[in-house]
């Protein structure tokens, strides 16, 4: 597969004046002292503890950490699938969730799920236009036209009438990203979206996501356990501790954009990678020991 870049025109990109497009105004996430406890009265499992994180609008923020450390739980809280036990989350300075309030899931913060959630019984086009049609923002016919246009702008040509089961895995994931972008969300939430792919497809899709990001400047909240992916994609890498999860280290990735694979062999990248590995390895070891203790 080629690794060429797609020149996309997406909502948020300003082709005439690229400088303007790098100053988005929406999508600032503010997590303050958030804690999430499963079954507080009973088993009392602390998934997330006093997590505080500021994600400015338009930043690509990547969360890494050992498995079962609460990263997905935090994402679910932002998306509205889970309640916070303590603390607050603000989106654009408006309260999104707190101990008393959970905003229901919505198109302003769309999730791209781990194993893909394109509806298998709808064609790719129907999947992509699902959001606007179902929210009543567009009539079916105009949505179809807009959907076709978006798909071609995003480099996905010829699959609009296929079913997800007929196209390749990489194609499916791209279509799912297109479905998310169709709704012009404020925040894009991705929960280990490339985990189930082979390494070759993954490299292509990573580049694709970067192109989408460069063109649209959405705020991205990306969870992964692949450290190289984290540094390659992110502006900021947040290292999470083992359960109960909290922020252990913040690493700014100052590699300039747009990035491509030459980045991977740069000195700066190697230094950052060492830094992240050191931080994560510590936590991974603690997680394994805790698991062994539980079984003993």
């Amino acid at each position, binding site marked *: 597969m*080629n690794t*060429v*870049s*797609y*020149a996309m025109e997406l909502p948020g990109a300003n082709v005439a004046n690229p400088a303007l497009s790098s100053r988005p105004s929406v999508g600032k996430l503010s997590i303050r002292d958030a804690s999430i406890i499963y079954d507080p009265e009973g088993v009392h499992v602390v998934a997330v503890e006093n997590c505080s994180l500021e994600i400015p609008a338009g930043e690509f923020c990547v969360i890494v950490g050992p498995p079962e450390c609460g990263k997905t739980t935090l994402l679910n809280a932002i*998306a*509205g*699938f889970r309640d916070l036990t303590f603390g607050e989350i603000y989106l654009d300075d408006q309260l999104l969730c707190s101990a008393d309030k959970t905003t*229901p*899931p*919505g*198109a302003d*913060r*769309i*999730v791209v*799920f781990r*194993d893909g*959630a394109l*509806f*298998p*019984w*709808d064609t790719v086009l129907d999947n992509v236009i*699902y*959001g606007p049609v*179902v*929210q009543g923002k567009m009539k079916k016919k105009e949505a179809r036209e807009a959907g076709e246009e978006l798909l*071609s702008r995003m*480099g*996905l*040509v*010829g*699959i609009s*009438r*296929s*079913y*997800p*089961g*007929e*196209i390749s895995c990489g*194609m499916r994931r791209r279509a799912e990203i297109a*479905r998310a972008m169709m*709704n012009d969300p404020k925040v894009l939430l991705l929960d280990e979206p490339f985990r189930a792919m082979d390494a070759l497809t993954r490299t292509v899709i990573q580049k694709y996501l970067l192109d989408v990001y460069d063109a649209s400047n959405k705020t991205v909240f990306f969870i992964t356990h692949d450290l190289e992916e984290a540094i390659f994609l992110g502006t900021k890498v947040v290292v999470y501790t083992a359960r109960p999860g909290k922020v252990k280290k913040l690493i700014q990735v100052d590699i300039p954009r*747009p990035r491509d694979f030459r980045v991977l062999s740069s000195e700066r990248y190697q230094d950052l990678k060492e830094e992240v590995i050191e931080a994560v390895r510590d936590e991974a070891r603690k997680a394994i020991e805790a698991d062994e203790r539980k079984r003993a």
Partner: protein
Amino acid sequence: MQTKTIDVKAMAEEEISSVSQAVLRSGAKHALTTSTPYLAAVGLLSTLAGWYLLCEFFKVPYFNELPGPVAVAREWFSRNPKFGLSIYTPEYYQHICRSTWRVIQAFLWATALGVPLGLFMGWEKTFKDYTFPVLELLRRIPMLAWVPLAVLMFPGREGSVIYVTFLGAFFATTLNTLLGVQSIDEVYLRAARCLGSSSRQVFFRIILPGALPFIFTGLQISMGYSWFCLIAGEMIAGEYGLGYLIWTSYITVAAPVLVIAMVTLGFLGWVSTAAIRLIGRCLMQWQVREMAQ
């Protein structure tokens, strides 16, 4: 930075269907070169031959009371049948129509009531809490144990036979539909909510299509049950119909008619399930195409 649009090679609608046709055609031709159809023919023919030899040729004791294929064929295809039933007599078709009509009625009622009920039970947990235990209790009673009560409840034979047939189909349909809803991966529900669907939209655009595969499996099973119960009902309490025919031909010792009725039943059962499968395939295009990959 280079810009290139990469187009995915995709086949147009017409191309897809013609390719699959070509595959099927070459598949059929290919199949004839393998041993599969020949082995099948060997199996079926040897069963037929065994039947003939045991019942008519060697007249093995016990087997010789049963009609052999020759006797059955002679009756079935003659213009002047000895026991009054062949493909040329109108009574044959009357019995077939009567039975088929009863099955259709019962099956349609069972589907019309069972599918919405199962969908709703899967969708609303409170509703399921109230209704599921009752369903499970009633299901424990074998459907055919209802026959005497059904005859009491519905004066006249027709109603009772249809009711018993309906029961069998109903439980199978409801439970399979419920299972279908429960089997839908939660991820799809979450994605739908993210994309801003209301509850009603989730029900019609996610739950309904998602449960469809299970629903159609359930419909095939319930069709099988329908025939099962129908025959019992007709044998016990019916007039006209293939079950009734089987029973009376036993009593009047019209043995070839017995076999004719059995074979006809088998054929009807197979055709009806195949029809449901076909409808399912039409409605669930996405599965068909995925499997063609």
